[in-house]
């Protein structure tokens, strides 16, 4: 897919390590991807593969003992990693916003919803209490919360799970950020609410014209909402392409494994695939390609040397020695 959109965010060789008592955990070990303006990038992978850490690295909100030790995060053509903390504070909430997985614990229990939503407005735009409150009510309406004038004065525990997540979304979008990062926003919700929230996010995306990074382990969610997809494993991107390519033409064994492990209506499948083994301990990654221990296409070369991220086409990157084998298998099924 030829592209003449502008790049909003570009990550180059990002490395974030955690220096713990037991050793160094290379949570993010050389991640590259691009987010275009107005598009949604889905980052998909199992728990522990480094997706959330990537998000925190972008926001520069890493907890001790984590540290970003290398790479570039180019946002609006400037490297965020080189900015001062004061400059970051002006970016957070205003240009890049984030929503989290657990809406109950992510909202402050002793402050009203209205306060928490209008806080960013008062801070970034210097609105006074009146104006901020009015805008907060409007935002609550926009995210589909009924009786917003009343809700604005209520506390998080008085709202249901779905409503809290809507409130979080309202909070994140209050300053019209250019980029919204959503870290597993629907995982903690009931399936029916999940669907509602996804619908809401899709409609809001159309309205606010910003970009979204959707982090999840759920391929179903990715299929709904992403334009482009980055598949992560053990701290690295293993495949990056647009949605259609990923789903029809997966080129990495891991992507292939993920896709064949969920039932699909658009093709015939006799059995669901299982990716053998478990995610490796981040303190003891295997030599060579990190996926080789679980990969059915693995050869000696895979165990010795780690493949680089190579471009199959301009917008399709894969990190594997045996892409051709995977494509062959995929052709049979997809």
């Amino acid at each position: 897919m030829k592209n003449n959109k502008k790049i909003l965010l570009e990550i180059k060789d990002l490395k974030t390590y955690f220096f713990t008592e037991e050793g160094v955990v290379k949570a993010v070990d050389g991640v590259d991807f691009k987010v275009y303006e107005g598009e949604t990038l889905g980052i998909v992978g199992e728990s522990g593969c480094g997706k959330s850490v990537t998000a925190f690295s972008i926001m520069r909100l890493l907890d001790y003992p984590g540290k970003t030790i290398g790479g570039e995060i180019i946002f609006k053509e400037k490297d965020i990693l080189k900015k001062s903390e004061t400059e970051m504070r002006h970016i957070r909430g205003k240009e890049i916003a984030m929503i989290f997985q657990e809406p109950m614990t992510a909202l402050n229990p002793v402050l009203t919803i209205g306060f928490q939503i209008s806080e960013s407005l008062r801070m970034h735009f210097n609105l006074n209490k009146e104006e901020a409150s009015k805008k907060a009510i409007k935002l609550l309406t926009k995210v589909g919360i009924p009786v917003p004038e009343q809700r604005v004065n209520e506390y998080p525990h008085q709202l249901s799970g779905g409503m809290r997540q809507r409130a979080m979304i309202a909070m994140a979008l209050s300053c019209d950020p250019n980029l919204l990062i959503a870290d597993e926003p629907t995982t903690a919700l009931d399936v029916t609410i999940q669907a509602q929230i996804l619908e809401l996010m899709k409609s809001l995306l159309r309205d606010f014209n910003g970009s979204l990074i959707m982090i999840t382990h759920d391929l179903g969610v990715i299929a709904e909402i992403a334009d482009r997809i980055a598949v992560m494993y053990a701290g690295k991107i293993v495949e990056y392409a647009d949605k259609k390519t990923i789903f029809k033409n997966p080129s990495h064994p891991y992507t292939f494994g993920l896709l064949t492990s969920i039932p699909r209506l658009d093709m015939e499948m006799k059995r669901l695939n299982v990716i053998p083994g478990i995610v490796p301990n981040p303190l003891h990654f295997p030599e060579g390609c990190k996926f080789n221990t679980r990969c059915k296409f693995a050869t000696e070369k895979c165990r010795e040397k780690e493949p680089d991220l190579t471009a199959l086409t301009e917008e399709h990157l894969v990190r594997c020695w045996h892409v051709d084998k995977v494509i062959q298998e995929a052709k049979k099924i997809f």
Partner: protein
Amino acid sequence: MNRILKKLFSNVTSLVGIILLAFFIVIAVFAPVITPPLSDDHYQIPRMSWDVNPQPPGSPMSDNMKQAYEFMEKEVKWKKAICGTAEGGYDIFYGLIWGTRTAFKIGIITVTISMLIGIILGSISAYFGGWIDEVLMRITDIFLSFPFLVAAMVLTTVLGRGLDKVMIALISFGWMGYARLIRGSILSTKEETYVMAAKALGVNDTKIIWKHLLPNTIFPVMVQGSMNIGSMVIMAAALSFLGVGAPVGYADWGQMVSFARNWIIGSPGNAGQYWYAVFYPGIFIVLFVLSWNLIGDTLRDILDPRLRGEL
């Protein structure tokens, strides 16, 4: 366990505490060697003279005193009061050495017994629940309604002076914390599956409490107990300071400080004249309690998983 010990020894604060504690243990163990007792009651501090005023360190025994001892056919091994004498001629050094034993006695006995009472009541209360729990908790509330020092003071007044009465007072009002602690632990452990499994198999109640619940919940209570040893000693000293603790002349640090109020200001123009009467027993109390607190504080930090830098 080994990891905990290793951490305790490597942390500066707790290491200091351990060294201090070792110092006191040595003194307590070798008390009869350092200062041999003069009478059957080892804790009766011998007098160096009949002086009302405290005498400075290095004062020799008065002549009348020497004669008195000869008369009583007692052999006195030392000739000078190394740390001086307290009001009434009591040898401070003797009091410090034997007072160490007293401190350990008070600390360990009161904590052990009150912990035992607390654990028994707390676990019964938590395990059986219902009205047993209700009644026991109300009783705990009633006991908790007394400020500790006031309650202890009332008891020692009514029961009389003496170290055993002091310990009874401290135990009577010291068990509630442990009871609540273990009750809370057991209430959460009780719902665990392995306990339910044991119950379903028909294991009797006492066995369940003994074999399943207690071993998993008792550790924090014991940690709390060891940290309380210091405060028990302070309480006993406070009671002695107020005049309702150990009797006059007993080898107890608090008792030695109790006279201090009168002598702390010294005589006009010489404020620090009787410094030794307060300083020596005072510093022993402080260091003793400090050692327990240093160890205890570090222990608490070690056992707190969040502070171990875990992901």
